[in-house]
């Protein structure tokens, strides 16, 4: 008899364990969307500083901008905080009217003063993405004259040249131009830092969700903004940092997360067979390319540049290593951009490549190195190219390295071939034209260092053409100019562009309206709901 209580106690413990374990196995809470992703690139949540993919997504869901666009057709630009706008006849002054009766999550009203403050703040802080506004001639010294409040709900934004209006508007729709709560930030300002040190990890916006909690490399929690005009269906969205993709898959299949964001092609293929899971994808404004350093005398020969374009098995790469992560694309403007070309003239053609190499005086091929980031996908693509290059006698040595190391070398123009990807900074074609087709100064200590510079390429007249295209106010003429630029780079540029990225997310069937948009800041969870 004496033993009974002890026995009961342990039985009770086992029972508690059993029930709580099974509780753990149950699905995620019905009002919460839980996602697994690799988020170690988040270093700040201040919209004036954010420039990385993952953080842009958070900014996109938690802040608003003057302007937004339809993610199904990015050419449809509309107001977000702005109710309407006009452009002055000389094309230099933009006047915005703000929607009345809107509030920040803090409860403070959104006024023109907040918008002026937000744009000036981004220029003054001058962090990495500030050039998106700075390119319009805005500086710390002139911003007070150029960005002005003209009424409680009205402001003007003045640019230095009559740019194509869509360029200005797309840039004002970029995360760097997010509207922040002036009152809240002023309260948290220290030593004239515009509240920067506070906002890096906190929140001062008006978007559908509030950024409630961020533990670096662990978890990021968004919560419904009660002051937002449209109530979000879900109360909470949680992003869990799960580095291992195999772990992400397990969590998804068990229902411990609703969405897995970083699966590799095999894992995507596997989960797509699971009846409880759907695989969503969206083309992104990111292209994969090889950069051929023109300081290497072999790579500087136009025939060699051409030959290499014939030595990539584009379709095989898209169908195997990068399956469901990208599609063949050879022009520098991603599909969906104004003037984007979708012709892909190059195919693997060893005979043609050999012919070109012979013309260049390299009949027996040559040796060259390629700096690769040590990720499974990039390494796989590099190996595939190694095999096809070899067919024409080109001995490609792969130099695997840490991504930051590869970048350091690339930016110092010390590579032979660099394999990487490039995502547009904003939805306007100038973003990519400016980096692939223009290079104002090819000297080693140039101020601007676009991709053309990194590969020591002087694009000659293309630079002027790029500068002209950005001033063209007729959209059709402008599109034509970008088509010409793309063709020139495709024919002769030191870039072997081979894929446009597709972003994939594996989502459990009970989740609806989870949207992957054309840019990372357009990945939208505000309408997501669960059945």
């Amino acid at each position, binding site marked *: 008899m004496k033993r009974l209580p002890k026995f009961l106690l342990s039985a009770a413990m086992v029972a508690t364990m059993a029930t709580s*374990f099974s509780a753990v196995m149950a699905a995620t809470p019905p009002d919460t969307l839980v996602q697994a992703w690799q988020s170690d690139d988040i270093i700040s949540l201040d919209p004036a500083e954010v420039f990385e993919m993952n953080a842009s997504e958070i900014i996109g869901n938690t802040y608003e901008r003057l302007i937004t666009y339809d993610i199904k057709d990015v050419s449809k630009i509309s107001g977000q905080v702005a109710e309407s706008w006009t452009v002055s006849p000389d094309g230099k002054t933009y006047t915005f009217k703000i929607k009345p009766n809107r509030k920040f999550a803090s409860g403070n009203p959104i006024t023109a003063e907040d918008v002026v403050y937000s744009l000036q703040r981004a220029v003054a802080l001058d962090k*990495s993405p500030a050039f998106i506004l700075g390119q319009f001639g805005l500086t710390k010294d002139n911003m007070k004259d150029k960005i002005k409040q003209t009424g409680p709900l009205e402001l003007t934004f003045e640019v230095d040249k009559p740019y194509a209006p869509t360029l200005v508007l797309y840039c004002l729709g970029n995360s760097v131009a997010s509207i922040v709560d002036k009152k809240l930030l002023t309260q948290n300002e220290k030593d004239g830092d515009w509240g920067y040190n506070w906002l890096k990890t906190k929140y001062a916006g008006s978007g559908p969700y509030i950024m409630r909690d961020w533990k670096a*490399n662990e978890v990021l929690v968004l919560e419904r903004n009660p002051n937002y005009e449209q109530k979000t269906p879900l109360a909470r969205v949680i992003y869990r940092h799960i*580095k*291992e993709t195999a772990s992400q898959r397990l*969590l998804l299949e068990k229902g411990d997360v609703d969405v897995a964001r970083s699966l590799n092609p095999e894992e995507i293929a596997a989960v797509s067979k699971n009846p409880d899971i759907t695989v969503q994808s969206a083309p992104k404004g990111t292209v994969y390319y090889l950069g051929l350093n023109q300081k290497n005398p072999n790579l500087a020969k136009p025939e060699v540049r051409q030959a290499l374009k014939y030595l990539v098995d584009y379709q095989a790469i898209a169908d195997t290593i990068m399956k469901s992560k990208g599609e063949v694309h050879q022009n520098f403007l991603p599909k969906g951009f104004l003037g984007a070309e979708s012709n892909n003239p190059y195919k693997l053609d060893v005979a043609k490549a050999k012919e070109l190499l012979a013309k260049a005086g390299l009949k027996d091929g040559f040796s060259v190195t390629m700096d690769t980031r040590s990720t499974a996908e990039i390494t796989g693509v590099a190996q595939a190219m190694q095999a096809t290059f070899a067919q024409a006698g080109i001995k490609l040595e792969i130099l695997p390295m840490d991504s*930051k190391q590869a970048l350091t070398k690339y930016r110092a123009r010390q590579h032979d071939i660099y394999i990487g990807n490039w995502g547009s900074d904003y939805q306007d074609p100038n973003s990519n034209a400016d980096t692939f087709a223009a290079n104002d100064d090819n000297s080693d200590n140039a101020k601007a260092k676009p991709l053309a510079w990194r590969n020591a390429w002087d694009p000659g007249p293309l630079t002027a053409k790029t500068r002209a295209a950005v001033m063209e106010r007729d959209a059709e003429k402008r599109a034509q100019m970008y088509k010409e630029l793309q063709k020139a780079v495709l024919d002769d540029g030191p870039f072997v562009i081979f894929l446009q990225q597709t972003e994939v997310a594996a989502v459990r069937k009970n989740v609806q309206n989870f949207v992957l948009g054309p840019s990372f800041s357009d990945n939208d969870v505000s309408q997501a709901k669960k059945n």
Partner: protein
Amino acid sequence: MVSAVMNGGGGHVGALRSFLKKVVQFVIVLATTLLGLVAVTFFIGRVVPIDPVIAIVGDRAPAHVYERTRQELGLDRPLIEQFVIYVKKAATGDFGNSVLTTNPVMTDIINVFPATLELATLGTIIGVIVGIPLGVLAAVKRGSLLDQFVRVLGLVGYSVPIFWLGLMGLLLFYAKLGWVAGPGRIDVTYSYLYTPVTGIVLLDTAMQGQWDAFWDAVSHVLLPACLLGYFSLAYISRMTRSFMLNELAQEYVIAARVKGLSEMRVIWRHALRNAAVPLITVIALSYANLLEGSVLTETVFAWPGLGQYITNSLQNADMNAVLGGTLVIGTVFVLLNLVSDLLYRLLDPRTR
């Protein structure tokens, strides 16, 4: 009587003196080790062809933003000057700020260390509780099936990659059988039910009476702890076996048997007691290994500990964090060595 006490007292003074000597020695060893570590990691960190500025400003930053940040970090100064500044700051516990988390590195480490401590401690406890008896039995029944089994167990534990084993464990116990919870430290549903105090989730939830959260944490820690425990026991059982074989061949064991002591008493009271002394070093080393070597386990199980922190920092060229983390591990290593040394002295009078 009086002289006996005096002698005894003299003995204690001697022991104390030797103890103090050891402590002074330790402080010197710690200081030089740390300085050496700082120097090596600092210079490796500066020599590697990775630009820490890119880690902060990103790939797209315009030239002037890049240059300004470089100056802010002091990277434009001579290397020696940078080193002196770094050592001066480090001496006060200031390892600079982490690029990734923007917090002071020390704060970050204080935040992530409990997670690693929790995991490594549980792993070591499992390793000791299971490993020592296994090792003893294997030695006693040398050549038997059990002995073979223990040796194979040790071999597997040593040769199979922990990463693979972790994934297989997850696949079986989490995905298939559903006995334990998946990657992570605690379910998101429970993570806001308690306030972190010690940073050790099991302790915090238990102290605050959040039993659902506690059991959830148990369910999360079980698999990674058993995995680390397995690695630890593989090592501990192998060493126990060899120490025990050594002891069992000693004359005092034969003498004890001749005196007619029971086999149990001979093995567990006499032989193991002597074998325990070198075992302490083994356990301490194994503990230190788990503390620093759980990097892969932490990655597979999404365990937000020191291992994951340092891996992430390395991948992102967050050199302040890497340096800080390395120093902490170095300190732990030296400290654990000291503890095992002191225990050694306490247990084995011959070493005093």
